[in-house]
């Protein structure tokens, strides 16, 4: 168990490279098997994980560049554990649901590489290593979108790549500056997150560093007004690309916020809570409205992702255990739900080669199972209690309520607007008579698609009813982090803020 994290990171890489040897007709099953083994490895990790231990577990530490303080440093805690599992799980599901014949070998190898980078991002404790995986994740995604997407795929792929790259490159400067500050304070070079967490920075420095890191994460999330790459990427990407993009890649941004912004720059974070929350609220409402106006099924879900990410950000910037835990849980639930929705759209796209809502109507007649699963996911997406979507949304909002009730109220309109666009989408494509004869004889979901979707449906319900196994470890780590933040905060206001938002009583 000592090296399980390395194993988890590098297994897909090795399997991907070896995948070149596997012949085209067997590669799909190969990919699924690898993803399954990888998923099992993360499950083993979960089993071995001790939910009540401080700090990081399964830590590995090897010095790589000593002059520079760069280490191969891995570890996992409650915050990252489930994101790792989500990554491997969704990769597996996406591969099961894969329905592309063209150059499928390259595709599967890219997906496996992508899996490595995703897992790597969540498991890295060394910031340089984190950055390495963070940037590298762009390359396979570029290829996936650009090579297997629809008409404007190249534009979309380049936009995705450049936008996120441009954002993160500034983070690199921030990372380096942070490393410099650590060196100046501690006298040794270190880029390790646990080390950095102990570093107390003056307020002004925090502000600048916060900005550098925040921009990268904001673009990745993507926050308004940096979101415009996402609709293109989703709209053009193949199903598997959208699934992974929505379910995991976007979470890298919010994960970064939890992992870096909060514990490293507590004062700056608190200083920026309200402005960021305002942006998040704009994002929630604005994206929901745009989602309503869309004509393409996939774009609706893409914009709904933006809207939901707004609530996740709100939860994170609540700086209390409820909000942060909720937002992490919401990351997972959104990963599952939006992944499933994209897959569902993929199913219909495979049949009709269009995603235009106006082309559909009455699908519930010809494809009842499809409609049912879609309905379940839709309800999870609008946050119906007892589905996975509710828990995170509820906790995020309840957390932020303590910070500002009015913003929470405004963000809460997201649940109304969410219902509006989702239901109208559902109505327009599934209800009514069959208006387009092409939809008359569509086949309902086949075995492969069901195999991919049923586990998601089960998870949506099971985790909606019993989220405790996830919430508990997350909550434990989050609480530790908030204690740390309070200890580290240099300004009195920040300290008071943290105490205030974490205590019951008072406040409208």
């Amino acid at each position, binding site marked *: 168990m000592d090296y399980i994290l390395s194993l988890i990171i590098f297994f897909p890489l090795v399997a991907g490279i070896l995948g070149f040897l596997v012949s085209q007709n067997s590669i799909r099953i190969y990919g699924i098997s690898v993803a399954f083994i990888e998923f099992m490895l993360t499950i083993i990790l979960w089993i071995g994980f001790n939910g009540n231990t401080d700090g990081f577990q399964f830590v590995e530490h090897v010095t790589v560049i000593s002059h520079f303080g760069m280490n191969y440093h891995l570890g996992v805690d409650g915050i990252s554990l489930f994101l790792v599992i989500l990554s491997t799980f969704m990769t597996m599901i996406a591969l099961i649901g894969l329905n592309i014949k063209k150059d499928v070998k390259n595709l599967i190898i890219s997906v496996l590489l992508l899996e490595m980078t995703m897992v790597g991002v969540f498991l890295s404790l060394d910031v340089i290593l984190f950055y390495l995986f963070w940037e590298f994740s762009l390359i396979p995604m570029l290829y996936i979108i650009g090579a297997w997407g629809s008409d404007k795929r190249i534009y979309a792929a380049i936009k995705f790549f450049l936008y996120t790259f441009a954002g993160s490159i500034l983070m690199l400067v921030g990372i380096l500056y942070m490393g410099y500050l650590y060196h100046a304070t501690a006298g040794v070079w270190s880029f390790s997150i646990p080390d950095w967490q102990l570093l107390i920075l003056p307020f002004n420095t925090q502000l600048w560093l916060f900005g550098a890191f925040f921009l990268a994460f904001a673009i990745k999330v993507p926050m308004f007004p940096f979101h415009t790459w996402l609709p293109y990427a989703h709209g053009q990407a193949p199903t598997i690309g959208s699934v992974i993009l929505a379910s995991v890649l976007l979470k890298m941004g919010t994960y970064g916020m939890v992992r870096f912004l909060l514990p490293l720059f507590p004062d700056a974070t608190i200083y920026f809570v309200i402005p960021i929350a305002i942006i998040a609220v704009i994002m929630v409402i604005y994206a929901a409205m745009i989602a309503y106006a869309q004509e393409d099924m996939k774009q609706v879900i893409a914009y709904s992702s933006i809207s939901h990410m707004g609530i996740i950000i709100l939860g994170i910037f609540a700086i209390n255990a409820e909000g942060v835990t909720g937002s992490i849980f919401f990351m997972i639930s959104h990963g599952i739900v939006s992944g499933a929705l994209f897959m569902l759209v993929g199913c219909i796209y495979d049949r009709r080669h269009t995603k235009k809502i106006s082309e559909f109507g009455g699908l519930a007649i010809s494809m009842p199972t499809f409609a049912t699963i879609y309905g379940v996911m839709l309800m999870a997406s609008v946050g119906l209690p007892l589905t996975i979507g509710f828990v995170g949304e509820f906790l995020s909002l309840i957390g932020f309520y303590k910070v500002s009730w009015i913003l929470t109220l405004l963000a809460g309109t997201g649940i109304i607007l969410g*219902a509006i666009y989702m239901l109208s989408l559902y109505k327009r494509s599934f209800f009514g008579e069959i208006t387009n004869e092409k939809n008359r004889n569509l086949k309902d979901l086949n075995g492969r698609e069901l195999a991919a979707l049923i586990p998601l449906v089960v998870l949506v319900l099971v985790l909606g009813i019993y989220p405790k196994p996830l919430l508990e470890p997350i909550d434990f780590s989050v609480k530790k982090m908030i204690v740390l933040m309070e200890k580290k905060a240099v300004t009195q206001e920040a300290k008071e803020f943290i105490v205030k938002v974490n205590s019951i009583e008072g406040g409208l």
Partner: protein
Amino acid sequence: MEQYLYIALFAPLVGSLVAALFAQSSKNIFTGIFTSTLIFISFVSSIILLYYVNANTIVNVEMMDWISAGNLSISFGFVVDQVSVIMMVTVTLVSTVVHVYSIGYMEHDESFNRFFSYLSAFVFSMMILVMSDNFLGLFIGWEGVGLCSWLLIGFWYKKTSASWAANEAFIMNRIADLGMLMGIFLIYWNIGSLQYDIVFASIVNLDIKIVSWIGIFLFIGAMGKSAQFPLHTWLADAMEGPTPVSALIHAATMVTAGVYLIVRAGEIYTLIPNVGMFIASLGAFVAVFAASMALVNRDLKRIIAYSTLSQLGYMFVAAGLGAYWIALFHLMTHAFFKSLLFLGAGNVMHAMNNELDIKKMGGLYKAMRPTAILMGIASVALAGIYPLAGFFSKDKILEVAFNDGSYILWAALFVGAGLTAFYSFRLIMLVFFGDKVHEKFGIVPHEAKPFVIYALTPLALLAIVAGFFEHSFYEFTTQLLADYKFTLDHSVVINLIFATSAIALSGIIFAVYKYIRGGFSEKIENWRIYKLLLNQYYIPKLYEVCIIKPFATLSRFAWLNIDNKIVDASVDMIAKTICSSGEKAREMQSGNLSSMLRWMVVGIIVLLVLAIFYRPMV
């Protein structure tokens, strides 16, 4: 005892899931019977629990943890106390009837199995709603019934209007749910728990301002579910669903959830009489407002729906004024006679081949005598004529209003009572008596199957006798709920009763008198007031013009103009600027050696100029 609780709670779920297994297969009578049986089992368990609770043992169980994060810890906890058990009994009783009725009603529908699955799921959600021991559990049920209502209104999803109505209902409810969530947040951050008992125990310590806000937010939640103005439009549209659904959800149970919430949170509302007064005023307003729309409507089900709306207004008056047990009592009696009315209407619809325009009916009494009698009973009960159930409960509400000194409210309710009587009998008269207009359309009415009629008899019975349990009901519920003190003289009460009965009777008589002679002339249809009422005060239109359309326009604008032309274009513009500056800079690369050499000299000269004139500050 816990097992009864679990049986009562989960029997409908089991039924629903089993029916769901057959959802895509063709009609199977088994699902109907099976689910009905399970609901009946649930009903029996509820009765047993009622017995236990009557013996003063409140059942409270914690099933398992649900959400815990930070200080928040919520579990699936259920409580069976005086209030919830009443609700349970009412819900399961009506549900049982509706289930059995539906076996007949839906027999020709291809999605028979699916229907029962949804219907039982609804019962399950409703049970969670009433049995939960914390606000979030209530919220689960709250949203659950919303979902089932969405499914059931839109049950005939091929009809665009049905799915539109379903969405409208869901979205309107969501608006209210947000208010409720805000209330829940507020409770949590002030008390630290959402458990009823803890909340009610510590609510008194809170600042009255905060309590008021909690009350307001929770009431916003209730407004949506109970379709109070201005969130009322969905209820009439919800009549697109199958009639048993209207009977169960949109008359007897779900719409009363709002009243239940106010009653349940009575301990909060007693602290804030101002908010209570507001609730009562709104209720009184809706009572008249909805009744007035019912006066002219020609749609059989919509009339009943407006009537429901109006009756909900009555309940809110009671609840708002602190007479919780009365509100609950009216809720219960209303459930009986209103679902009876709806189910009767369902029979009529079937007989009329799903025709809903009452002007096209008439003279059905002969063909469908049992139904006519049942609906007659229900209408009399609704009108509040002694000795039927409606009399007791509705009269009490008027009494409360008078007692409270809110004479305006009383007057409104008084008028409402008259209107209620009138439209009820307008409906009866137009449907069952008068000319057989339907013959013009070639419709041959037929009575429903006997077992359907038999299924309705328990409701009819209860609609007649329920009122006599008033005292025991009072005794029972006030063990938990705050008592309401009447300060009126006995004589005043008697006078009030007479006045109310008089207006109800005169309403009935007027309707009978008028419609037996062929009704009003066509001219009134040109009256402005008639049009206003027929168009529901133009409120749906107003929503359409002021909210739905602008929202759609704004959304498109945001997408096409803001998102594409500003946000996205500005990003692209950065890229384009860089590229075009690249093209510009490229001109420097003319490839001509002379100009290349000149560039070098230019470089030197610029640097020399800088060398002479530029002295940086050190």
